[in-house]
């Protein structure tokens, strides 16, 4: 492993078994199981089930933080971790731009959204406010805002492995030199969606989970959060931080087998385990295994097989802690990580409550009770829907080492990692397929359709840019799409444009990674599942809608259809969700020398999102209504603010190789956060400096930039913000560069910047006339367009800048 080594300097945790590491550890030591009856909301169907509900006053503990219950759980854990690491809030002593946040989440604010939907459907007064905290990305944003972190702020939604995947991502950001310190973890609250969803899959054990037991019958659903402070060893040493443990090995893989069930032989899990164990220096053994051990028939059987496959017939002690506080979904991997660190500090390991009778098929008898144990190295497994597997190896902190001996002069600056764009697929309102879309851009924009939004009173029709029907001919076997959500069809159609049979022959499945950004996932199926629950009092929940409702159902289905077995990641970060996925693809290629990284993004139109947008004044009621002149001096063809849109893109990236054909090159990508919300004053000078640094890292001189492409959407606060950063940059570099926009082709949605990336690729590849992106006559015809900067800002403070070159 090259690069800087991540160490752990802080830990925070909140579960049904206690709040704070002291309480949780005490429960584990005393074997007090925290499962009990549900009181957070009423569930006609599962009222008698044992669940892991956090009984403490979560909102109170979070200091009245405005956010979802998941956000509050996450912040409680993050604050404890910061204090544990000797850091103040906001963080001082570490440069804010060198501090990142990576959180896992699956539920987000679903609990609040369910209450809103129930009000609507039962004809009660319409409440809207909880929907502000619907999105999974909220927890990471809350942690970044309150800690003052201005580095990359990322949310991963890879179902039940998300917490562990957040740790992997944080470690790679450190290794890569992108950050010096990163808060990593995950939070998930209980919700009707997940309780009934797992119920509809017949995966709930009413008596509480019994991991590895012969009679095991499913999981107990839980909630909670955990956060670790990861730091580069040398910067932690330099600030005098106490090092609790080291993160020594990590690896991720994808089964590419089934939407919810693991590969029965645990082949995917075994690849992740092997990757993590092989990453360790030397041949020291694993002393303890913190199993994923959910208590389902399939998971425990598969996990036992995978462990035997990699570590041999005789295993070190294994235990699953799931019965202490239930399966906390995304938070599970982070909670286990905190407990692994605690085990290394205390030199003791947890028991496996719920286990009584061995299962002869497993050939695995877990540790029965809490025991003091001399341990140096522990392995923690996490597996999730879609066959997402992650394995982490934590090791005991040694005596303090002189930083001079730790690394061999590795730079603390982000590395330059140019990547070749080999192919592009796209489904958009102006056309399907790269050539069609590039050709249509000159036409000025997409024409809008009107979508009926029944949730508004009175119901109204809202203009939107829709992608139209997805042609069944896009798919090699159209019958396979019978259960796919619309958004899955969109991303798969874009993928098949890229993944021609010939191109696929050049990949090895294990050496191909996939990352997909999405703001809201399969929102239509998610809402259909929840509305069905509410309308029928939880009778007959629909499993297909549930399996589609997880944000990673897009990436999972692509992996299954194409057999992509490398790490599979879903990134959720509002307007920079696509950039977050792009960052993952670039890191995979740079770190592992993979064959290909597929990077995609998708969001779909939904009446629910349109209703919320209409209520909050996001869309102009009439498409022709003129609005005040916006800051960019641009006006979409129809005037006023962009309507809602949708779309999907898929990009194939590879390490550059001389002579190989490519469309263009991604020269650099930088992600970060700004202390800004739309409506506030933006420090344009600071933002311009930030972009300038990104260009410097990519080794692009300011004078080389031919076009500055923004996510301007015709809404004054956003467009003014874009314009002010562009103007400040122009002043700084003393050179005027035309600015342009792309949302006239796709409308406004979370992952519209994926469409922007495709437009930028067309621009530098000479396939799109820059005049169609630039207002008026600001583009001199015949001028070359070789380097494009793609600037994306989220109204919630996340930002990204991508540099593309011919």
């Amino acid at each position, binding site marked *: 492993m090259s690069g800087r080594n991540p160490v752990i300097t802080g830990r925070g945790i909140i579960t049904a078994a206690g709040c704070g590491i002291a309480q949780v550890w005490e429960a584990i030591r005393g074997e007090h199981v925290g499962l009990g009856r549900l009181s957070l909301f009423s569930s006609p169907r599962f009222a008698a089930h044992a669940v892991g509900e956090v009984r403490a006053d979560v909102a109170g503990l979070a200091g009245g933080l405005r956010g979802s219950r998941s956000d509050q759980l996450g912040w409680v854990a993050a604050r404890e971790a910061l204090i544990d690491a000797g850091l103040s809030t906001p963080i001082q002593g570490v440069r804010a731009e060198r501090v990142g946040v990576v959180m896992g989440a699956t539920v987000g604010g679903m609990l609040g959204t369910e209450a809103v939907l129930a009000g609507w459907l039962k004809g009660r007064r319409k409440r809207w406010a909880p929907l502000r905290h619907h999105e999974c990305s909220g927890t990471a944003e809350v942690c970044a805002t309150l800690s003052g972190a201005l580095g990359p702020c990322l949310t991963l939604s890879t179902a039940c492995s998300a917490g562990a995947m957040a740790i992997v991502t944080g470690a790679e950001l450190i290794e890569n030199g992108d950050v010096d310190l990163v808060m990593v973890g995950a939070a998930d609250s209980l919700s009707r969606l997940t309780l009934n969803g797992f119920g509809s899959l*017949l995966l709930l054990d*009413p008596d509480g989970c019994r991991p590895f037991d012969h009679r095991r019958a499913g999981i107990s659903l839980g909630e909670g959060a955990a956060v670790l402070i990861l730091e580069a060893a040398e910067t932690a040493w330099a600030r005098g931080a106490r090092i609790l443990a080291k993160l020594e090995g990590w690896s991720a893989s994808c089964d590419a087998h089934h939407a919810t069930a693991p590969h029965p032989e645990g082949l995917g899990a075994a690849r992740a385990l092997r990757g993590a164990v092989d990453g360790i220096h030397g041949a020291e053994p694993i002393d303890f295994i913190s199993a994923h051990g959910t208590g389902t028939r399939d998971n425990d059987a598969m996990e036992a097989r995978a462990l035997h496959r990699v570590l041999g017939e005789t295993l070190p002690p294994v235990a699953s802690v799931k019965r202490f506080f239930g399966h906390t979904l995304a938070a599970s991997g982070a909670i286990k990580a905190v407990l692994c660190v605690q085990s290394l500090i205390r030199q003791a390991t947890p028991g496996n409550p719920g286990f009584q009778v061995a299962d002869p098929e497993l050939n695995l008898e877990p540790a029965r009770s809490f025991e003091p144990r001399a341990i140096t190295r522990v392995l923690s497994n996490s597996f999730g829907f879609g066959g997402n597997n992650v394995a982490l190896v934590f090791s005991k902190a040694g005596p303090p080492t002189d930083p001079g001996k730790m690394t061999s002069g590795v730079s603390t600056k982000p590395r330059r990692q140019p990547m070749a764009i080999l192919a592009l697929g796209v489904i958009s309102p102006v056309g399907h397929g790269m050539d069609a879309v590039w050709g249509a851009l000159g036409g000025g924009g997409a024409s809008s359709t009107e979508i009926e939004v029944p949730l508004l009173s009175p119901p109204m029709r809202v203009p939107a840019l829709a992608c139209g029907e997805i042609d069944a001919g896009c798919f090699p076997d159209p019958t396979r799409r019978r259960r796919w959500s619309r958004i899955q069809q969109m991303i798969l159609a874009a993928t098949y444009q890229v993944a021609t049979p010939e191109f696929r022959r050049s990949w090895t499945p294990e050496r191909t990674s996939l990352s997909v950004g999405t703001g809201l996932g399969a929102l239509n199926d998610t809402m259909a599942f929840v509305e069905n629950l509410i309308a029928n009092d939880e009778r007959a929940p629909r499993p297909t809608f549930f399996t589609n409702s997880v944000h990673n159902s897009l990436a999972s289905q692509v992996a299954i259809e194409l057999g992509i077995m490398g790490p599979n990641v879903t990134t959720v970060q509002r307007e920079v969700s696509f950039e977050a996925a792009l960052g993952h693809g670039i890191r995979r290629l740079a770190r592992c020398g993979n064959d290909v990284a597929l990077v995609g993004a998708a969001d779909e139109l939904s009446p629910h999102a349109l209703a919320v947008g209409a209520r909050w004044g996001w869309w102009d009621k009439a498409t022709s209504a003129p609005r005040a002149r916006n800051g960019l001096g641009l006006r979409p063809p129809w005037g006023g603010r962009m309507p809602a849109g949708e779309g999907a893109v898929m990009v194939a990236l590879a390490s550059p190789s001389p002579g190989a054909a490519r469309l263009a090159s991604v020269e650099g990508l930088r992600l970060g956060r700004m202390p800004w919300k739309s409506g506030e004053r933006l420090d344009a000078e600071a933002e311009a400096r930030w972009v300038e640094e990104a260009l410097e890292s990519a080794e692009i001189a300011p004078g080389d930039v031919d076009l500055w492409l923004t996510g301007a959407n015709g809404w004054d606060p956003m467009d003014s913000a874009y314009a002010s950063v562009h103007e400040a940059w122009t002043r700084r570099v003393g050179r005027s560069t035309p600015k342009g926009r792309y949302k006239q082709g796709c409308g406004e949605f979370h992952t519209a910047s994926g469409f922007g990336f495709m437009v930028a690729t067309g621009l530098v590849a000479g396939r799109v006339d820059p005049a169609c992106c630039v207002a008026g006559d600001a583009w001199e015809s015949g001028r070359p367009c070789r380097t494009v900067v793609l600037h994306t800002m989220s109204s919630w403070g996340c930002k990204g800048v991508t540099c593309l070159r011919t």
Partner: protein
Amino acid sequence: MDNLIHEIKTKIIAGFSLEKVTPQDIQTDAPLFGAGLGLDSIDALELVSILERDYGIVIQERGVADKAFASVRALAQFIVANRQPCPGGTQS
């Protein structure tokens, strides 16, 4: 019983979005899952949902579903033996 068998087949085709499949294509005594129609475990769970919605039969364990879903005929017999009056469901 024959009516019920036909009804089940129709529900399977609609509920599983089986394009170009007719009730005649589904054999009454053949295994429903893991062969022929290409149905999988999630389809089986959808069928659990359909049984609850239309016949008031609540299945909580996978083992029960596996036995009940051996074939369309087995499923019809299971429904006759277990059906509950169900306000929103069809009665045949």
